[in-house]
């Protein structure tokens, strides 16, 4: 069994050499202890900082915030903490990770521990500083991956525009919002005229290319707040927040012209492609967002009946 002297030596050794930063300040913010981790990373030896005021020794520290945190600890007499997630670091130390993942310096978690005397008054604050760089790198990789995943699940694979589920959910949200604030809302449903013929005559690869190009042209014709999604095989839906059917009609016509303005080159052919469009708008008595879709669909059907390559606004007598 180690005797008390050995134990003291052992404790000193451990506190000094453990792979966490340990430093202690008193009520005057004077540094009383500065372990090897702190020495190495700050490049300041203990004997040059012990006895000095923490903020004088390290003017780059966020003094106002940190001083308040220390003061609160003396008053509250309880552990407190900082996290790299809210505050990336206390001290700007270099990190030693070969793969940076965009992190420029060490990320730090910190525990502030009150050291009390026999009367229960706090005499010192002991800081333990943990290197959280790895965690922060994994976290940002995870975030990146999650975002990619979210994209994958909301995008149509072929055209890269939003998929049906996404655009329907968007409509549902816009419908709620429009109802809550009394805003206008319109929906455009459009599909490619004679698309089946493109597939039959020129093959599915040509059909795919037509879908991609049409999607892109539609995207280019939108305004910032509009949401476009691939609703069906050759069908698209556009959600137009804060727009009435007059405004929607203007946009629909613009889209129609953009799509037909230039032929689409594919399969060694120059294909002229047109779209038909149906427009619906939100009324006071529109019961649900599905009704907007149904009405746009009826209007679209009317466009087909009227010879295609045109826009129709929904009317109740359809």
């Amino acid at each position, binding site marked *: 069994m180690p005797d008390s002297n050995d134990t003291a030596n052992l404790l000193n050794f451990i506190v000094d050499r453990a792979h966490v930063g340990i430093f202690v300040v008193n009520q005057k913010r004077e540094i009383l202890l500065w372990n090897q981790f702190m020495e190495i990373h700050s490049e300041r030896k203990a004997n040059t900082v012990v006895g000095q005021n923490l903020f004088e020794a390290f003017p780059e520290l966020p003094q106002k915030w940190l001083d308040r945190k220390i003061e609160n600890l003396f*008053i*509250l007499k*309880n*552990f407190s*903490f900082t996290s790299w*997630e809210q505050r990336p670091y206390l001290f700007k130390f270099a990190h030693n990770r070969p793969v940076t993942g965009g992190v420029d310096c060490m990320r730090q978690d910190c525990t502030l521990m009150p050291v009390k005397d026999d009367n229960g008054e706090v005499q010192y604050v002991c800081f333990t500083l943990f290197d959280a760089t790895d965690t922060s790198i994994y976290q940002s990789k995870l975030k990146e991956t999650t975002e990619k995943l979210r994209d994958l699940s909301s995008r149509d694979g072929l055209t890269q525009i939003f998929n049906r589920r996404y655009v329907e959910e968007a409509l549902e949200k816009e419908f709620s919002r429009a109802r809550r604030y009394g805003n206008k809302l319109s929906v455009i449903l459009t599909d490619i005229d004679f698309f089946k013929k493109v597939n039959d005559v020129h093959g599915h690869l040509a059909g795919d290319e037509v879908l991609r190009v049409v999607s892109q042209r539609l995207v280019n014709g939108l305004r910032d707040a509009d949401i476009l999604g691939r609703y069906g095989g050759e069908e698209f839906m556009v959600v137009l927040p804060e727009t009435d059917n007059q405004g929607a009609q203007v946009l629909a016509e613009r889209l129609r012209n953009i799509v037909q303005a230039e032929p689409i080159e594919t399969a060694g052919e120059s294909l002229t492609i047109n779209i038909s469009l149906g427009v619906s708008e939100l009324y006071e008595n529109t019961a649900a967002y599905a009704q907007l879709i149904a009405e746009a669909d009826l209007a679209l059907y009317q466009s087909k009946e009227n010879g295609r390559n045109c826009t129709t606004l929904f009317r109740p007598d359809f």
Partner: protein
Amino acid sequence: MYYTNTASSKSDKKTAIMSIQPYTEDQNDALQEVVNIAMGQAGDSLARILGRFVELSIPRIHLVNVDDVIKTVTSMVNNNTEISAIRQAFSNSLRGEAIVVFAQTGADDLADLMGYDTDLAPSAEQELLLEVGNLLVGAIINGISDTLETDLSFSAPSLMAERTPLDQVLVPEQLSWSHSLLMEVNFAIEGRDAKCHLLMFMAEEAINTLRGILDEFMDGI
């Protein structure tokens, strides 16, 4: 009233729990008193920090089982409110997890009360919630620890949810504890008030351990 989990319970862990006795009036009384004392001290400390008169109180403590937690918290917080929440684990003689729930309006009120700009940057608002949560949880854990003379420690708090509907945050299947002590925390600073809710989740074992600790404490008086 007994909280008995019947065969209709969905998850395995709950069917394993037979029943848990609620605390007696005396045990509740003792727990309430411990928490009152802890809040008195925390309120005093907070007053010294803010330089203003602070009232910090926990009017009542409820013991609920996890399935009832949402129902109870929802009735205390406004329905359909978005909330932010922090979580903090505690251990040693009692093991569990504290969750502090702030209704969004509460978070703004708190910032205002504590003298921050209400238009805080997200990370600053998070820091505020974490600090206030840590203050409350720390005060209660320390209060229980000191007054009931039992060893308790807690670890760093972390952000659990931000501006999220309540029922997406407190999902019984995701909470690995069977019971919770539920406390409404009232802050009043110079006549204005804010509120948050503190849930101390524990397993049945810890609830029983605490019961024993309370009994021992009362015997010693």
